[in-house]
């Protein structure tokens, strides 16, 4: 319809234009108008000239910037490569010595020479300091044991830690976050309190780095930031915290159920995950209580954990909360029931299999299969069902190749 209308509109304009030009008087009028407007174009010409000069200058400026940037980047890359090669030679000389050799006076003297050499030759330039810090961090990430300790000690002897601690006072969140990351990586605890003050920082990156550092550096209460965490813990944030927790000594891990009462549901979710990951069976009663949490995401996460723990006793609670749960949580509850339920739950699962929601039916079928022989027998029987989708769902679930 619109297209036809536009055709008509186009025809109208063409016809109007034809009529206009058919009448000489109009043409004359147009000529006069254009001539008068041409006289007024002088100001436009001036404006255009100014703009032309401006754009030309910008273009040339950008071109020069581009070429200079390219040359500078190339120079920087080459310089970085060369200086890091030199650092690597020096650092590997310090790292690769056996432990016995490291105790000798000769080794200690040689190490002193290296430190002196670094200071005198390279560390007067800020850029070299930056590259050296980066390189020590990189090597430290890839080494454990005495080699990592040597690198850490060298970092301290070169007083690079002082600079990082100084950078914690920078108004720039990026510089602060970088310093926090560096101190955490090298396990330098001098500024732990200062870092902990940043665990609730408004900047997401700095906050995360500070929390990661707190977990690594604080030996007394590394997870205290969870107590007062009012910020939303995004999935990304949780993944990063979980990653760092995986690297610390298991003895330092707290009882994560301590935060099940947190007013922040994302903290509760995260702690449920950690409870499961670190097999904190003692938290199972508290986990069961979370099935009645007001936040549905927490309920889903609790159900998942209870399922993984195989807590058959939670089956009745799961059935109770199932009724009023939102669909994604219902799916999680069904999945959990499949993992922790017993044969008493079979009638409920059959009921779910035969109702109209395909996703729920599919999950119920999966759970029936997981419950073992009796569940599988039910599924085999239902493959002949005339109800929409039920037979095909059962076949799908029973097909081991999928």
């Amino acid at each position, binding site marked *: 319809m619109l297209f036809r209308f536009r055709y008509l509109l186009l025809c109208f304009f063409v016809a109007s234009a034809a009529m206009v030009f058919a009448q000489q008087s109009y043409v004359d009028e147009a000529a*006069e108008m254009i001539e008068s407007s041409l006289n007024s174009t002088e100001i436009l010409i001036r404006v*255009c000239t100014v703009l032309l000069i401006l*754009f030309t200058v910008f273009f040339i400026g950008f071109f020069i910037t581009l070429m200079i940037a390219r040359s500078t980047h190339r120079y920087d890359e080459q310089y970085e490569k060369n200086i890091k090669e030199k650092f690597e030679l020096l650092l590997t000389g310090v790292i690769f010595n056996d432990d016995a050799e490291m105790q000798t006076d000769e080794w200690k003297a040689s190490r002193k020479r290296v430190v002196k050499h670094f200071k005198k030759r390279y560390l007067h330039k800020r850029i070299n300091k930056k590259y050296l810090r980066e390189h020590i961090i990189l090597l430290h990430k890839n080494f454990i044991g005495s080699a990592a300790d040597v690198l850490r000690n060298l970092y301290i002897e070169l007083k690079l830690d002082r600079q990082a601690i100084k950078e914690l006072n920078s108004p720039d969140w990026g510089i602060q976050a970088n310093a926090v990351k560096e101190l955490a990586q090298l396990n330098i605890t001098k500024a732990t309190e200062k870092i902990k003050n940043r665990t609730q920082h408004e900047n997401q990156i700095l906050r995360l780095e500070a929390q990661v550092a707190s977990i690594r550096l604080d030996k007394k209460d590394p997870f205290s930031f969870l107590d007062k965490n009012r910020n939303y813990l995004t999935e990304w944030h949780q993944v990063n915290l979980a990653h760092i927790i995986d690297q610390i000594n298991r003895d330092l891990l707290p009882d994560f159920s301590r935060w099940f009462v947190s007013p922040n549901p994302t903290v509760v979710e995260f702690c449920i995950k950690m409870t499961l990951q670190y097999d904190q069976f003692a938290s199972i009663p508290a986990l069961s209580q979370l099935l009645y949490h007001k936040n549905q995401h927490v309920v889903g996460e609790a159900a998942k954990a209870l399922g993984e723990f195989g807590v058959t006793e939670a089956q009745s609670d799961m059935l109770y909360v199932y009724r009023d749960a939102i669909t994604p949580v219902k799916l999680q509850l069904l999945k959990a029931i499949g993992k922790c339920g017993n044969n008493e739950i079979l009638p409920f699962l059959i009921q779910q299999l035969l109702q109209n929601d395909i996703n729920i039916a599919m999950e119920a079928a999966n759970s029936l299969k997981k419950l073992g022989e009796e569940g599988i027998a039910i599924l085999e029987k239902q493959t002949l069902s005339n109800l929409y989708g039920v037979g095909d769902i059962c*076949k799908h679930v029973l097909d081991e190749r999928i």
Partner: protein
Amino acid sequence: MTVHHFIEYLNAAIFFYAITVSLSYVVLAVLSARALHIYLRKNKFIDHNVTLTSPYAPSVSLIAPAYNEERTIVENIRSLLSIHYNAFEVIIVNDGSKDATMQTMIDAYNLEKVDFFVNAQIKCKTIKGVYKSTNKAYKKLVIVDKENGGKADALNAGINISQYDLITCIDVDCIIEQDAILKMVKPFMEEREHVIATGGVIRIANSCDIEDGRLLTARVPDSIIPRFQVIEYLRAFLLGRMAWSKLNGLLLISGALGFFDKKIVIACGGYNHNTVGEDMELVVRMRCYMSDHKRKYKVVYIPDPLCWTEAPGDTKILGRQRNRWMRGTMETLWMHKKLFFNPKYGLLGMLSYPFWMFFEWLAPIIEFLGLLYFIFLVIMGYSNWYFFLILFATVYFFAITISILSLVFEEYSYRQYNKHRDILKLVATLMLEPLIYHPRTVWWGLKGNFDKFKGKQAWGDMTRAGFQKKVIKS
């Protein structure tokens, strides 16, 4: 209204239009610079390996339609299966290929038909069978064999088959960077607001070194037509979409690589079969859906180069592609005309939609009319040549300044082309672009308009030279 008034209004309208277009480019450039700076700064602290090893990272379904791809399909699937991610499945939808695509896949991956229950939540043509490999090494692979229904239909079939909550729709013949999923999944995990879609930068792979479905070295294309497109893509992705993403006003996520929240895609009814611009139409529909349901959401764009595609190498094929893009734009705008300056849809209705309407759809028409008007002035002897030359030079330098700015952005961000000679080649290309390439894009845009009014619906044949020689027809 007299002719005097008419011409005066026409002049004023053209002037106002030109100023608005130019200013909008400047504003977008400033916003992009800011957004890119923030992204790069944040990115320094991101370690994607954390996601790679995490059991808490979301699972992803990769969906790739295939039509007559028998010569390259085995290699393409291998490349997709080797992507760096932990929990994902690769769904290849054979869209009724007329060649031996299906048999080639069956033979190469030891496929056999399974009793797969298809949860047909979105309409699509009949699925003839779902196949899985008997080889455990390919357990992530699912092959769907269906009747031919076009790209949108194939993607819908893939969505029905997919088992995970995040889906990514890709062109099977594109080269996806190994860490593409890791990067694209991040906004879904990171944002507090509901992210419904993410898109990444598409780059031109012509003349690049490619081995085993992986890009080894990026090079500036040897021939001029793809080189023009390099400039065009850099400008569109680094200057345009980055800014629109910052404003949360992005209307288009390229069909070559897009990530979507499956629940929202299904709630919206999936890809539309009735348009040749199904990628843009889906994003607009998803946004409308979220606004209609008063739900806060985001569409995020990532400036990292994640996908490399072969650009049309000659004007004939490029013309068909641009013609299709124009028709797709028109169809999407028409389907969602309710958005036009509709305050109910916020920025989407008040800015994004009108921008696309005036500066994407109408731009070639207005440019062409402007040219006609100029010719009329010349014929009638009313042209002021001095003014014309000054104005022309101003517009030309403005255009190339914007283009070179996108090169500056590239230099300060990803530096894919790392030789001085590459930069010089691209600068020479961008200087020629407004004179040689742009008039053609205007013409193709006009032709797209004309074809749309004629009721053309076909995609048009896309013959590609290929990383290996091949023909794609959809």
